[in-house]
């Protein structure tokens, strides 16, 4: 089975003192969506990943990373 992509969403959210509901509101998605992404149960689509990156003013690679990928 494919390994889910890891993410730093919880850390980034905590740095800004945002609750899951706050982030969900900013992204215009459900709180369940934020929780599912945070816990790695669901990998977001590219458009949603870009929205997250824009919201946190960073790159997608900073938020999401694949631990099984070979490091360069």
């Amino acid at each position, binding site marked *: 089975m494919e390994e889910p992509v890891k993410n730093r969403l919880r850390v980034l959210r905590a740095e800004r003192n945002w609750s899951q509901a706050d982030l969900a509101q900013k992204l215009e998605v459900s*709180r369940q969506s934020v929780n599912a992404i945070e*816990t790695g149960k*669901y990998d*977001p689509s590219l458009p949603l990943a870009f929205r997250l990156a824009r919201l946190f003013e960073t790159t997608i690679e900073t938020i999401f990373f694949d631990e099984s990928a070979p490091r360069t």
Partner: protein
Amino acid sequence: MRLCNRNLTGLQRRSLALVGSMMAICAGTGGIFSRIERSHFSAPTYYVIALFAVTPIIGAMVVIARYLAAEKDEYLRHIVVQSILWGLGLVMVIDTFLGYVIEHASPHIPALTAFNMEIFLITAAIALRIQLWRNQ
């Protein structure tokens, strides 16, 4: 945006109401058809009756398709599709099993094919609830 009774979006409320109506129509037509089953009609009449029987199922499919097209939350779309697959899967399992048993072993077992729509929707609803509960 939550998909629960307390906080449904307009789209979710409308879609649930329409699917519920289709389910009620399906149950109603199922009851009527089981009563007129003993009557003898011409073959074209049976085709018309069969078309009436599938109309609410097509209606429910259209409502679900329109909901999926309009729902902006991709995760909700994802779990709704998964729930639909659970519903379809259970209907196929029950139909295949009972179809074989009725044809070869016990023709007196009541066919559940008249309740396909209800089985599908109830299974899908339970699967959706479980997925939402797992992701509280």
